[in-house]
Structure formats: structure tokens, C-alpha cells
């Protein structure tokens, strides 16, 4: 392990008890170029991409994947299929191609899953109630 420098920190959602780590994210619709900014909870229990509520999904699923490429997730209430659409996302100014997902039925909120989290160096500073993106110091 080397030395890491914090690039940017985001405050936890202190309304949640216990407080939850949040990350600022923006998504851009690939067809229209429309952009939306929001904060998503960093959820290491979700193995997927970026979960969004149905209304957001409907607005930004300009390039939806075929049904056969929707992924099925194991949950405590049984398997759940998530719709999936291509978007460009940005975290801390870094833009990347990824997917937004939402359940076929039921509710969802903004969650960042491990398929995205694993691409970033993220530190959870619990006592400070801040989640920070890091850069390795060379």
C-alpha cells in the first residue's frame, strides 16, 4: 500500500440512521446529451451498476439493452430482474460508459453498486462522516 491523497470528499447522508456514505454522480443520456446530477449511496451489498428510481430510468434509458441482457440479482425476497440501459456517467470529473438499472416492478433508489465502486479508490471516513475519492501519490 502506498500513500494516497484525497481528491474530493462527499458528506454522508446524515438523515439516515446510521449515516450512509454518498457519492456525487452525474449521468448523461447518450442520445440527447441531457445531464442529471444526484448523490448515490455507496452500496457494497449491491453487485450491480448504478441503480436509479423508475422515473429517472424512464428519462435516461435512451439506449436500453435487450431484455435477454437484463441481469438477475439474488435478493432476500428471491431473484429480481433489473432493466438496464447504457449511459455515460461521471464521478469526480472522470467520465465512463456504464449502465443504469431499475427493477421491472417495485421501487428503487440511487445506489452505486460494486461494478462501479471497484473502479475507484474510495475511503470511508466514518467518524468524519465523509466518503473520499483517493489518488495514489507517486
Amino acid at each position, binding site marked *: 500500500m502506498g500513500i494516497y491523497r484525497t481528491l474530493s470528499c462527499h458528506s454522508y447522508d446524515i438523515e*439516515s440512521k446510521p449515516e450512509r456514505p454518498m457519492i456525487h454522480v452525474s449521468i448523461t*443520456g*447518450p*442520445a*440527447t446529451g441531457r445531464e442529471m446530477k444526484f448523490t448515490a*449511496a455507496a*452500496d*457494497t*451489498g*449491491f*453487485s*450491480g451498476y448504478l*441503480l436509479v428510481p423508475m422515473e429517472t430510468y424512464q428519462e435516461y*434509458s*435512451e*439506449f*436500453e*439493452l*435487450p*431484455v*435477454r*441482457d*437484463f*441481469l*438477475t*440479482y*439474488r*435478493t*432476500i425476497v428471491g431473484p*429480481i*430482474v*433489473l*432493466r438496464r440501459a*447504457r449511459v455515460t456517467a461521471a464521478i469526480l470529473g472522470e467520465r465512463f*460508459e456504464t449502465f443504469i438499472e431499475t427493477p*421491472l*416492478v417495485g421501487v428503487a*433508489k440511487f*445506489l452505486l453498486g*460494486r461494478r462501479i465502486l471497484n473502479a475507484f479508490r474510495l475511503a470511508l471516513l466514518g467518524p468524519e462522516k465523509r466518503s473520499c475519492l483517493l489518488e495514489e501519490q507517486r
Partner: protein
Amino acid sequence: MDVIIRGMRTRIYREFKAQANKMGLRLSDALQKAIERWLLENSQSSLVMNDPNQLAFAKLASQIESKYHGKYVAMCGGKLYVAGTLEDLGGQLKEAGIARAVVSHVGADESGEGGEWLWGSIER
């Protein structure tokens, strides 16, 4: 995986086997296709299948897979758009004034089991 099915009705099984044979399919492939279709018709995914673009894509899926492997394809209004990159495909759609389509990176997009969605997102 190997599966043993007991109690099949002889006539249905024979008809199924004959039809698979006629179509040049192995019995396991024909059975898999039948199961996939049944699941699609009876699962939550059928809600999305009301979308005409999804329906049109599903109809041409096997043709698209064999013809455009590795390409980006989009289905919209019954028309198929093909490009080498997502940017090129986006350009084609923009030119055609399309803001919503079913888009696939043929043979590259993962499908099936996505993993788990556990306790992390559940709150009191």
C-alpha cells in the same frame, strides 16, 4: 448441466423431438429455446416486452447474433442500425432523429446472473 425429466407425455415429446430434428436443432437446444420463451412470457420481463423495439429485437435476436457479432446495433421503429462503435451508432441515431432505442453490443454484453443485492440497501 444434465437434467432428467420424468413423466413427459409421449406424444408431446415425440412431436417436440421431430420438430427439433426438422429444424436441425439438438434436443437440448430446442428445449432451452422453449424454456427461454416460456420464461419470457411468464416472467416480469413480459411487461417490458410490450415495447415494440424490444419485441422487434427479440424477433431478430438470433439473426443479429450471427450476423453482427462484436458490433453495436440499435433497433428502433422496426429498423436496425449497425455500427462499429457506440459513438458511431449514436451519430447514426442522432442523424435519424431517434432519441430512444434498444441498443446491444452484440456478443459482448453480459447477461444472466448479475450477482446479489443484499442488505446494504435495506433500511428500517
